[in-house]
């Protein structure tokens, strides 16, 4: 019988791949391996340990912390108990953690380290339901005497006792998992209002696997580096679900700070990231090139256009003439290979960008250096990815065709509607919001887009973000913002202009690169604020805005802009944990700056 839950897939992998490496984590400077069999045993012990502590069918286990092996053990353990696992962003502050714990009614939480434990202890009196805090890394907790605390290792030891008494119990629990049970609750990042918990069943996830396996050919020899927060559906797919389907290896970096070095060491074969990180990698390359010796700069400037030309031909589906091929081979040896090696992407063959639109300029840059990013479309409510370009069908600005099993249509007002087995089971404890999102079986995405002649979807923008100027023209702010963010000096741009005469923009500087620029130009500064208010920096950004304006029609150009004198921060509720700006909040908070641009 085909496995119909994630846990049954897991059991299959244990037998199929038993001694192959499933997980690697860099610890004490060495990549420590976990085979599929060991992976299984850890999950078995932790599941039974939780059972000893009173975790039952339908209970929720929250997981709070940076990505690590134990994150996945806990995730699978909750599901193996026919319970639900709920990921919380490690960057969430205590009150946000409290909201999620209360909202989903978790009795158990796994916290990675002291930093996370402190947050939970701070709010434990407000969440009386909470029974145990399982701590992965006990470092620094020597003085803590709270009876709620228990270490991950202790729970596994409890589980081992039970396993010795009833060796068949775990297998039984795994086999009794039901495809219609909710497997995970994923809290949406909440750019407007409080986060909502989207319930995703085993059936949803398996349907997604069935669809995507016809588009992306993942193999057991593939490897990923787990870099984005695991509580996000995209990372959960790459670090948990795809490996359970194809037997790939997942690698965990030593710490957030060492990610770039670890990426180089692992050189993964598939790479998923959000536009923010692709932007960052691009600006790092540009800055390094500015500092490079003359010869290297010359190579870069001479070879990049070769890559651009060849990738343009390939994207257009035309054949590449022989002389361009020879030049391209040279460019590969001199520039693209070392560059990809530096980025840790030499071995990679599948590149995916998701969660937000990627600027076309950025797409062209990466395609030119031999990193063919596919932009995909997806959302938590559709259990991950719903549209992705097939091999050889990548288009700049397009997100491809729906994966098999997903039906798409465009509503009269332009909103994208989706239907299929992938559509989630509803928001936890919020039937009103569910009814709002799923009407007559169609998931209303809140995004506006169109389908072109080849059947590929193009996303225009979020429906509620579309700006209608005082002149009555519809404008998609994210296109303009992405064009601005292509500049290495701009980290965040928020275009404003709804029901106003012209467009303006709030800009946050990319501190590192602007600081670097200031040093090279002998401009004295002390911190972000002093840079943001400097007249020379303003001139620099004006230049970048002018450059970006050339790409747009007159009504779509930015007439005035203001550089924010503080960096946007999740703690100040200006951006979400996934680095998306909360427009409404920003427009309210910086009202005075915005009004000043219209007087």
């Amino acid at each position, binding site marked *: 019988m085909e496995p119909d839950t994630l846990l049954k897939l897991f059991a299959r992998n244990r037998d199929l791949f038993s001694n192959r490496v499933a997980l690697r984590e860099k610890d*004490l*400077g*060495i990549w420590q391996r976990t085979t599929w069999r060991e992976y299984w045993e850890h999950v078995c012990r932790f599941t039974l340990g939780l059972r000893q502590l009173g975790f039952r069918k339908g209970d929720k286990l929250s997981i709070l912390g940076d990505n690590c092996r134990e994150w996945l053990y806990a995730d699978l353990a909750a599901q193996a108990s026919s319970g639900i696992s709920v990921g919380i962003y490690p960057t969430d502050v205590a009150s946000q953690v409290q909201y999620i714990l209360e909202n989903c009614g978790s009795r158990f939480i796994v916290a990675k380290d002291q930093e996370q434990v402190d947050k939970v202890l701070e709010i434990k009196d407000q969440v009386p339901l909470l029974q145990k805090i399982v701590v992965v890394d006990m*470092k*620094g907790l*020597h003085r803590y005497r709270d009876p709620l605390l228990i270490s991950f290792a202790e729970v596994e030891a409890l589980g081992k006792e039970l396993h010795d008494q009833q060796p068949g119990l775990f297998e039984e629990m795994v086999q009794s998992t039901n495809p219609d049970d909710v497997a995970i609750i994923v809290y949406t990042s909440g750019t407007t209002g409080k986060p909502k918990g989207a319930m995703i069943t085993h059936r949803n996830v398996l349907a997604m696997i069935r669809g995507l396996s016809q588009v992306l050919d993942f193999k057991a020899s593939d490897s990923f580096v787990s870099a984005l927060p695991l509580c996000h559906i995209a990372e959960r797919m790459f670090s948990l679900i795809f490996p359970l389907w194809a037997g790939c290896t997942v690698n965990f970096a*030593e*710490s957030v*700070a060492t990610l770039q070095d670890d990426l180089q060491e692992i050189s993964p074969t598939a790479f998923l990231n959000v536009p923010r990180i692709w932007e960052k990698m691009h600006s790092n390359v540009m800055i390094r090139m500015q500092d490079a010796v003359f010869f290297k700069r010359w190579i870069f400037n001479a070879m990049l256009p070769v890559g651009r030309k060849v990738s343009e031909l390939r994207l257009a589906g035309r054949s590449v003439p022989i002389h361009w091929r020879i030049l391209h081979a040279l460019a590969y040896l001199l520039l693209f290979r070392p560059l990809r090696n530096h980025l840790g992407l030499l071995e990679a063959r599948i590149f995916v960008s998701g969660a937000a639109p990627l600027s076309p300029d950025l797409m062209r840059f990466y395609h030119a250096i031999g990193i063919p990013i596919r932009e995909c479309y997806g959302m938590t409510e559709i259990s991950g990815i719903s549209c992705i370009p097939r091999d050889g069908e990548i288009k700049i600005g397009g997100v491809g065709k729906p994966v098999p099993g997903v039906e798409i249509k465009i509503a009269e007002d332009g909103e994208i509607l989706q239907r299929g087995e992938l559509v989630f089971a509803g928001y936890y404890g919020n039937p009103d919001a569910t009814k709002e999102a799923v009407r007559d079986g169609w998931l209303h995405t809140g995004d506006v887009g169109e389908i072109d002649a080849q059947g590929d979807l193009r996303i225009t923008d979020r429906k509620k973000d579309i700006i209608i100027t005082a002149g009555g023209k519809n404008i998609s702010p994210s296109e303009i913002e992405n064009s601005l963010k292509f500049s290495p000096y701009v980290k965040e741009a928020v275009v404003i202009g709804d029901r106003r005469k012209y467009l303006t923009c709030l800009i946050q500087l990319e501190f590192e690169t602007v600081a670097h620029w200031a040093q090279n130009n002998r401009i004295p500064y002390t911190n972000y604020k002093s840079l943001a208010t400097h007249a020379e920096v303003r001139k620099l950004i004006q230049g970048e805005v002018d450059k970006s304006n050339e790409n747009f029609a007159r009504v779509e150009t930015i007439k005035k802009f203001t550089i924010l004198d503080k960096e946007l921060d999740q703690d100040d509720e200006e951006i979400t944990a996934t680095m998306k700006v909360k427009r409404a909040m920003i427009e309210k908070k910086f009202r005075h700056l915005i009004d000043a641009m219209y007087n």
Partner: protein
Amino acid sequence: MTELLEIRNVSLHFGGILALNHLDMKVRQGELHAVIGPNGAGKTSLFNCISGVYRPSDGEILLDGKNVTGWKPHEIAHAGVARTFQNIELFSHMNVIDNLLLGCHAQMRTGPLSGAIFFGRALAEEVQYRLHVEKIIDFLEIEKVRKKPVGTLPYGVQKRVEIGRALAMKPRILLLDEPVAGMNVEETEDIARFVLDVKEEMGVTIVMIEHDMGVVMDIADTVTVLDFGSKIAAGTPDEVQCDPRVIAAYLGE
């Protein structure tokens, strides 16, 4: 708790200058003992006496009941006393790992010859200490810089590396000379947390010279106050804080 380190009636002269004047001090096993006092009070001289750099003109220093007065610095180090310095004294062109491995040197049993052949016991020992170094790197959260030359690191990180090198000796007593001098608030908090963790998780006894009263009052178990080479007060942070002689020494009469 028993006394691990005892300073008994120690005096130190430099010609006519009296750096330490009949000083008595007891450091109990497992405590964090702070030594405070104005500039020139003799705090660093005391550390130099303990670690064997200076030989006291008079008096005795007892380590775990054994008289170690006049021992050479390397003998003291072998006996389990490690220290950091007021100005960072690392090998700035070596990377972090090598600096820490150097800290292990005193513990290593194999000689240069077997080290050169690098087989059997020497190899096993190298691996063992390399692991020890990695544990310290993990403890101090300096993974990101483990292969960087120390000279290129920011001041606060260098200070951490220096503490790491002292810990690499697997000390019983750690002497810290102004560990948070010149640091910003965040770096200071980090170091204070590490010092507490060293005490509680590694069970190392710590003697710390520090000017940052906030840190001293927060984390020290016992405080000894020196002025002009003499002890003017000793006790818990609260007791010392209220002592009129201490206030006078710090603020003037």
